[in-house]
């Protein structure tokens, strides 16, 4: 089967970007990716987005983004998988290249959240990724569903409050020198412990912020080596689902979909968890970051907080995790997040992560989670030199 290479990337700053609309963000990231790839045309566009219909009254996003990118006539698709929309768009693009139908494809992840100014409305929009009639109906939000998971996880493994603080503390530390990150300041354990609870036991500082942003990548069937003879290949990807609703799962703290997606991606790449040298995980909440690490198989169940606390997950550690600050501090523009992770992984492997560069990894994985783990995408990139 054909190989898939990443040949260009682009991203916007994340935050409440009042002066930039949905199309401005998508175009900024899309054009940057094409410029970095050195191409002015692609065969198709895949747009990862979750909520443009609700937040921006704009569906038909494939045509919309293609139009503003000045790519008339090309095939364009919106891919939706809740918070995993970005990862799902990457996988869709990769499948299109592997099929032989397209040679070069642009993936754009975008979410414009701040146009909806009332928090209750954004909370509702996000909650549409849960089961509408039997979770959301009762007033569930993503925070409250993750709160149930966090409490069950803490009880299962006897974890204390501070054990969950290590994740956001590392994320804030990492994001502090990343130019495009949303929350560029460090936090202390004291600040974490005194942070208000938004849905007990989840604290404000366990949660990723709301923000606007767009990230893009160009995937190609042809290799493109940089000046140092390095290229990056998408060697494995896997998607998997789990039950829509949390209450129908056998175990609240086992992300079966995440495990399956990781297994599929690693089988395709022919690698094991021990081979991974850098990770991008979906820390929308601290507990979700921990469950991602466990689903990837890089730590034993219940031991993820120790991996972070030990310093092994620092940029200079043996297994850097989210060197750019993850969802918690780099930011979480929902449908764009999976593409941010993918772009960051690509930049780590090609040695172009700037201040966030974590050594010189040759193999890394990104895990992008939709819903409470109901739709998960894992991608694995390898440096070729």
């Amino acid at each position, binding site marked *: 089967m054909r190989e898939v290479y990443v040949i260009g990337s682009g991203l916007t700053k994340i935050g409440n970007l009042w002066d930039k609309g949905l199309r401005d963000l998508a175009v900024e990231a899309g054009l940057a990716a094409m410029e970095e790839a050195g191409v002015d045309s692609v065969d198709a566009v895949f747009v990862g987005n979750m909520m443009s219909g609700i937040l921006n009254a704009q569906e038909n996003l494939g045509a919309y983004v293609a139009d503003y990118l000045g790519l008339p006539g090309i095939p364009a698709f919106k891919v939706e998988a809740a918070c995993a929309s970005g990862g799902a768009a990457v996988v869709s693009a990769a499948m299109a290249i592997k099929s032989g139908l397209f040679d070069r494809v642009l993936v754009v992840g975008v979410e414009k959240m701040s146009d909806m100014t009332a928090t209750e409305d954004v909370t509702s929009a996000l909650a549409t990724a849960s089961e509408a009639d039997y979770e959301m109906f*009762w007033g569930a939000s993503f925070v409250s569903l993750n*709160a149930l998971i966090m409490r069950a996880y803490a009880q299962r493994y006897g974890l204390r409050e501070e054990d969950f603080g290590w994740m956001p503390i590392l994320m804030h530390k990492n994001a502090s020198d990343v130019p495009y990150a949303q929350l560029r300041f460090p936090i202390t354990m004291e600040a974490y412990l005194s942070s208000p609870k938004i849905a007990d036991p989840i604290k404000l500082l366990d949660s990723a912020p709301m923000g606007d942003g767009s990230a893009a990548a160009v995937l190609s069937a042809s290799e493109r080596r940089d000046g140092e003879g390095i290229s990056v290949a998408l060697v494995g990807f896997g998607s998997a689902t789990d039950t829509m609703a949390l209450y129908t799962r056998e175990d609240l703290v086992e992300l079966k979909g995440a495990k399956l997606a990781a297994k599929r991606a690693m089988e395709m790449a022919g690698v094991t968890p021990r081979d991974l040298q850098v990770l991008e995980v979906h820390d929308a909440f601290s507990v979700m970051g921990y469950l991602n690490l466990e689903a990837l198989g890089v730590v034993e169940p219940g031991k993820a907080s120790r991996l972070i606390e030990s310093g092994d997950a620092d940029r200079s550690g043996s297994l850097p995790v989210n060197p750019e600050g993850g969802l918690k501090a780099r930011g979480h523009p929902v449908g764009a997040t999976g593409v941010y992770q993918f772009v960051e992984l690509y930049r780590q492997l090609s040695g172009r992560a700037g201040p966030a560069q974590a050594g010189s990894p040759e193999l890394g994985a990104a895990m992008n989670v939709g819903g409470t783990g109901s739709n998960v995408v894992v991608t694995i990139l390898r440096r070729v030199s």
Partner: protein
Amino acid sequence: MWAFNPSIPPIKREMPSRYRLEGFECHDCGFRSLPPRQVCPRCGSRNVSRVRLPRRGRVLQHTVVHSAPRGYEFYTPYVLALIELEDGTRIFSQLTDVDPEEVTQGMEVEAVLRKVRVGGHGGPVAYGLKFRPVLER
């Protein structure tokens, strides 16, 4: 949009589950859940039927919501819970008639019909079975 304003058709459609706890039972693996389904999500069997689930159970996990989605601000702080019914079926609902501070893991609860959502100004009202601490046994 349902996320912001419930309309009458979905309210009517979901009444059996929300008013009477009508769920489904798989005759091959025994799995029970809400709402009724045509295919068992655990084993894939289509050998399933509708079943009335018991109205009592206990709290397995719960959380207190302080920041609510649109339409639920009135109830804050409110308790959402994963509940195990007397037959072992797990469902998700809101607790009512209880101080959030007094909810404990394992607390026995029973279903009681309550208002859940009002669709905008003067819109339709959606009711459902919330759960309250068991008053008597």
